[in-house]
């Protein structure tokens, strides 16, 4: 069929089953927007900033597991999208971003709104394309979606010069992809899996270390089956919250810089780490030479480059977690779960010694209370997104996550401003869920213009702003490591969040007591309208436990015992 390049872009998006595209038009991408106007195969959501468009597509992808699609124009449209690409790249999120480019004849001439998009995005995309002929456009679009969702997922950029979107040519959308240089390994090596199973049976203190790969591979039921069968204790990374489900007796919690005591001690004392889709990030390991010092390591990852990148691995298994677990679990039929009983007992005592707790107050609202309260009121019905900082860690520590894809946050890149647009994307993907963005008074301002988007498209995202009038996480480091010199972290000068939300077509709540919080949350859920819930929390609350950067995991700063004794929750 004969059609323009712009039509081909729309046809490809429809053929890939994408229901919603997030974007922002501009000169170089106008022909594609003209075709978007004419079609009704997918919905387009106009965000108010290109960065937000990419984060929204990212949130859509994280909530569903499908490829998110964003569209931006050349030059500044593209550069604004780079933070979104990098965010998705660090967390391996399947996404296709389509950017306009100046016409082929202008490339390299410093044309108006020209920038080398493939050059800039090379380190923060899984792959990128600059389309050079109309003939290759259908194949490139097909490959972009294929690359985004297969193997280790990631964002793919397709940069299309304007004249190619205008040109008319034959469109046949390929049904198959054949990239001879790209053959991801899904099936784990049988011999290695057998060796790993033997190691598990021989170990005395095994520990399952579950990462975001378990979410991406949709392997959570298999992970739970493995744990059920073997009775091996589990720690989750920030990206894996929800895989085991809160309340599972074998889930110790989150490990790492703000991990709980039992999790970090378990990692320090285990004799066998079973890593499933985790990448030994520095925020998880702390001082590498002390990390899992007494353990052999089984490392399952779909990306061979992740294996033995930072630690020596004894049982490397390259493959998709789902497929590897399907092979591994039957080999553990005869595992003697009593073998690990003493180990489980040690860890249970560690957890009793220093449980994940906080000192609640009657005078002021504690941020941890807010998180737990949201969990009580909406629980598994909600999708929780977050920005980056103290509120993110409190949410990860205290929210009762029941399933994967319920917790959406920027773990790898740590992008402030991610939470709100990602929440919009998640709400568009899952309209039946209550979507709550847990944010801070610093982060929310980094994409607050999306109030307008959320109001226009009636995506009722609830933004719970844990307001301590500080850039809290930086302030916490300044308290601990910079002798309380609060350099540029005091945010006492603030907008009126309530009025700000109202001015953009949303609802605002000022919350200073627990009763007000309950009332506001109930009202927000009923009203079904985007809102800012400005919650005044105790100003100097710290995220604890904390492993100082570069320290060993077992050297944690813990909540003060004396305080705990007064009113431990």
């Amino acid at each position, binding site marked *: 069929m004969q059609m323009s390049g712009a039509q081909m872009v729309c046809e490809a998006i429809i053929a890939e089953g994408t229901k919603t595209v997030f974007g922002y038009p501009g000169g170089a991408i106008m022909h594609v927007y003209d075709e978007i106007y004419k079609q009704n195969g997918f919905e387009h959501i106009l965000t108010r900033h290109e960065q937000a468009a990419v984060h929204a597509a990212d949130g859509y992808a994280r909530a569903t597991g499908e490829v998110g699609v964003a569209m931006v124009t050349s030059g500044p449209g593209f550069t604004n999208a780079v933070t979104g690409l990098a965010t998705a790249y660090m967390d391996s999120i399947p996404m296709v971003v389509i950017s306009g480019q100046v016409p082929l004849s202008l490339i390299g001439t410093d044309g108006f709104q020209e920038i080398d998009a493939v050059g800039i995005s090379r380190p923060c995309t899984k792959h990128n394309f600059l389309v050079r002929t109309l003939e290759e456009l259908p194949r490139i679009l097909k490959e972009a979606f294929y690359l985004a969702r297969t193997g280790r997922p990631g964002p793919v950029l397709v940069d299309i010069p304007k004249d190619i979107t205008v040109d008319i040519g034959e469109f046949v959308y390929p049904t198959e992809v054949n990239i001879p240089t790209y053959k991801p390994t899904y099936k784990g090596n049988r011999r290695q899996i057998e060796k790993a199973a033997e190691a598990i049976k021989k170990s005395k203190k095994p520990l399952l270390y579950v990462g975001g790969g378990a979410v991406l591979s949709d392997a959570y039921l298999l992970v739970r089956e493995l744990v059920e069968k073997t009775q091996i204790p589990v720690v989750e990374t920030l990206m894996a919250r929800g895989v085991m489900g809160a309340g599972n007796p074998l889930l110790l919690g989150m490990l790492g810089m703000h991990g709980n005591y039992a999790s970090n001690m378990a990692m320090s004392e285990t004799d066998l780490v079973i890593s499933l889709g985790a990448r030994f990030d520095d925020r998880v390991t702390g001082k590498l030479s002390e990390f899992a010092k007494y353990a052999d390591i089984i490392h399952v990852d779909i990306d061979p*480059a992740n294996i033995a990148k930072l630690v020596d691995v004894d049982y490397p298994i390259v493959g998709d977690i789902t497929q590897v677990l399907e092979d591994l679990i039957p080999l553990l039929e005869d595992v003697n779960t009593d073998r690990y009983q003493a180990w489980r007992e040690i860890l249970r005592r560690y957890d009793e010694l220093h449980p994940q707790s906080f000192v609640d107050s009657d005078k002021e609202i504690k941020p941890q209370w807010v998180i737990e309260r949201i969990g009580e009121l909406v629980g598994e019905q909600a999708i929780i997104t977050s920005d980056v900082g103290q509120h993110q860690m409190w949410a990860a520590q205290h929210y009762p996550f029941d399933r994967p894809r319920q917790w959406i946050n920027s773990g790898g890149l740590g992008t402030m401003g991610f939470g709100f647009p990602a929440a919009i994307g998640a709400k568009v993907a899952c309209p039946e869920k209550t979507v709550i963005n847990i944010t801070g008074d610093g982060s929310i301002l980094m994409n607050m213009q999306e109030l307008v988007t959320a109001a226009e498209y009636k995506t009722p995202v609830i933004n719970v702003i844990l307001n301590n009038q500080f850039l809290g996480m930086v302030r916490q480091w300044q308290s601990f490591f910079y002798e309380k010199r609060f350099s540029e972290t005091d945010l006492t000068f603030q907008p009126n969040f309530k009025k700000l939300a109202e001015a953009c077509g949303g609802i605002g709540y000022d919350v200073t007591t627990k009763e007000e919080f309950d009332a506001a949350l109930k009202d927000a859920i009923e009203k079904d309208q985007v809102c800012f819930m400005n919650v005044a929390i105790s100003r100097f609350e710290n995220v604890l436990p904390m492993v100082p950067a570069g320290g060993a995991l077992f050297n944690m700063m813990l909540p003060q015992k004396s305080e705990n004794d007064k009113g431990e929750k």
Partner: protein
Amino acid sequence: MSLENERRVISVIVMNESSVLARVTSLFAARGYNISSLTVAPIPNSDMSHITIETQGSPRVMEQITKQLHKLIPVYKVIEHEEMVEKEMVLVKFPIAENLSDIAALCSAYNGGIVNVGTEMVIAMVADEPCRIRHFIEATERYNPIEVVRGGVVAIER
């Protein structure tokens, strides 16, 4: 040469498409790996190119370089082991006033010779193993070379 900083030659077979060299070199730059020399040319009768990279690093760094290269979508194959035949070429320009028979004798000892003679200078070409090329360049120093251009290592599996 310590284990921590071992010299290695890596062959990378890539799709011969635009920006593939940029992908390879920017990977080295972004991850802080070193490139000592680099050559690239198309493989005859195919749509692939052969890139030869001379680099150094610890065994773990070497392993990461290999894996990260393999991860690039247009990379077909990465060959990194000790069983390689390595050759390098060098061109050296000498003033015509130097002792040409000495230079010719030196070149022939290193599998080369004088390839161009002008009114002001002569140009010698030598192709040999990379370490022999280093020795050759040292040996030429007494003949006041005006310019030395090394070609970078090319390698093939034994």
